[in-house]
């Protein structure tokens, strides 16, 4: 039983009738049964995708889905911005007891690394992908870094415990062991952004935040519900296309083996920009061109997609050589439009089929009387991918 003493102080009281959690922090802890997942994407004009999931009789039901108005404020860029703490409340349909926030931040980082690299004094250069790196064709918002971050060298971290948040050098990160023991997945945000997010949903009002995840990490959890992924026994490759980045994830029997951000690749915003400039069309036309077949946008897409597929091939070769994992299916997730053009490129370059399923597949057991938005297509459903994954991960706890 959790007893909240102060706003920032909660103690966990073990009652005699409560069953002890198996294995402590390393064990699997059951999460709440009613969670609203929200993808806190400040750049989407439609708002923030939100999904409310409920566990009933062992099955996860989608109770509500839609875009909710964004909070009246942006993610803080420094400790000083914490003074302007924004309070956010969700519409009635999404007022579950708890919420899981998936956040996209220019300052976030998620990378595959090792514990040794993390604990050594020269940790930061050893990271495979720099968190704020200039991408091809797009310049990320220059996030103001804390002054001490530039002047002080990165210090060593004592061996972190998996799934336990660690504050270090102004950042907060959490690690998860991958299937191979020497590798870990590390994801984090600046400390002030985590604090801001933890207070975004005010206490005493439904919902309050029980989980804060970076958006790519939340997407990883969403894939586990896909029926095709389950049918493939969890051995597959996944390409997560976000607004500004592309991530690869390799699985063996559902366990994550490989995670990397595609170097030099931009997200689907750049893809839309390339189509718009290459074909000379307006913003309104881009989606219809990418979804339809009347105009072939492949010449415009090729400079973006081919390097991504070449990097994907490298990753697949890495999986095959190191783990003897041969994937025969690649899941293309998060891409709202133009998935069939990616599939055609993939068949040419890789010879492996791309699958872009509905993000709600595996979840679509709706409670009677509740409907998803009417204009929901398979591509449009991918806008909810991070929200779905965040809620699902929070419901299942950690493990």
């Amino acid at each position, binding site marked *: 039983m959790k007893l909240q003493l102060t706003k920032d102080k909660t*103690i966990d009281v073990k009652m005699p009738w409560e069953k002890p959690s198996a294995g402590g922090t390393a064990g699997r802890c059951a999460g709440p049964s009613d969670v609203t997942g929200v993808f806190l994407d400040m750049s989407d004009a439609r708002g923030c995708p939100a999904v409310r999931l409920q566990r009933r009789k062992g099955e996860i039901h989608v109770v509500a889905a839609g875009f909710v108005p964004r909070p009246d404020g942006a993610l803080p860029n420094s400790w000083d911005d914490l003074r302007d703490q924004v309070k956010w409340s969700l519409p009635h349909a999404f007022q579950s*007891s708890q919420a899981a926030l998936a956040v996209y931040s220019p300052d976030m980082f998620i990378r595959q690394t090792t514990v040794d690299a993390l604990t050594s004094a020269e940790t930061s250069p050893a990271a495979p992908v720099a968190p704020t790196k200039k991408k091809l064709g797009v310049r990320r918002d220059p996030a103001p870094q804390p002054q001490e971050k530039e002047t002080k060298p990165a210090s060593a971290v004592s061996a972190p415990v998996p799934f336990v948040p660690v504050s270090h050098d102004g950042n*907060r990160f*959490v690690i*998860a062991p991958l299937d191979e023991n020497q590798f870990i997945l590390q994801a984090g945000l600046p400390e002030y952004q985590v604090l801001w997010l933890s207070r975004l*949903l005010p206490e005493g009002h439904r919902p*309050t935040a029980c989980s804060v*995840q970076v958006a790519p990490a939340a997407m990883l959890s969403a894939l586990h519900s896909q029926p095709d992924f389950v049918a493939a026994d969890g051995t597959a490759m996944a390409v997560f296309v976000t607004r500004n980045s592309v991530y690869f994830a390799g699985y063996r029997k559902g366990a994550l083996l490989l995670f990397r951000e595609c170097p030099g690749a931009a997200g689907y915003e750049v893809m839309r920009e390339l189509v718009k400039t290459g074909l000379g069309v307006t913003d309104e036309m881009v989606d219809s061109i990418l979804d339809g077949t009347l105009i072939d946008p492949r010449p415009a897409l090729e400079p973006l997609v081919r390097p991504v597929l070449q990097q994907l091939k490298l990753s697949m070769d890495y999986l095959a050589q190191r783990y003897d994992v041969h994937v025969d299916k690649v899941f293309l997730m998060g891409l709202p439009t133009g998935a069939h053009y990616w599939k055609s490129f993939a068949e040419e370059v890789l010879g492996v089929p791309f699958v872009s399923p509905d993000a709600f597949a595996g979840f679509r057991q709706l409670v009677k009387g509740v409907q998803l938005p009417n204009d929901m297509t398979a591509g449009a459903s991918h806008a909810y991918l991070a929200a779905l994954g965040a809620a699902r991960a929070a419901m299942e706890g950690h493990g």
Partner: protein
Amino acid sequence: MKAPNIHLNLLRPEEMASSSPVRMRVMMPLLSLLLCAACLVWWGIILMQGMILGGKVRSVRRDLESRKTAHAAILAQMADMRERQAQLDQLDAYKNGCLKYGGLLAKLADVIPEEVQLTALAIPEPPPQMLYDPKNPMRPPLPGPTNTVEDVQLRISGRTAATASMTALMEAVESDAFSEWILVDDAGNNAVARKKRRINIRQELHAGDDGVRMLAFEMEFRCKGRRFEK
């Protein structure tokens, strides 16, 4: 596929706020304050009641002090009253203990045979009672006898020439006509009862001037006791 899900939660447990509108961190201080206030009020009430009781005690003590003299006077008067009442009771007891023998003497004159000459007729004084406390002789004497019942005897002395006359006198006195004064037992016929009744019978034989031998006798009859009772 049994691989666990990866939940990279950056939120610490202590940062997770409760969505319940009843917040323990608000309610606990409030309840504590209410409890403290209730205790203060309770203690205040107890203190006030104590002060009121203390005032009452002081008032009662002052009242007792003021009434002490009057109380002592009342106690003395009550003691005097008890003393006088005891004296009255004793007087009543004496009054009730006063026996009248006029009827006895009148009837006795009717039953004395002609051959009997009475020489003495007496009701002896009872032995004096000890009204002084032997342990403390200086103490004033008791107002009355300590025994509430006193034996009374009727002594008849006389002389006669015939024994039958003496016997007739004795039987006449023991008849029902004298039962008002003389103690007559139902079992008066047996010897023991008679002995109780006739305490002393003495016969003296001597000759008179005419040469007739006379029998002197003395009879004592137990009368009903003198009861010093109200």
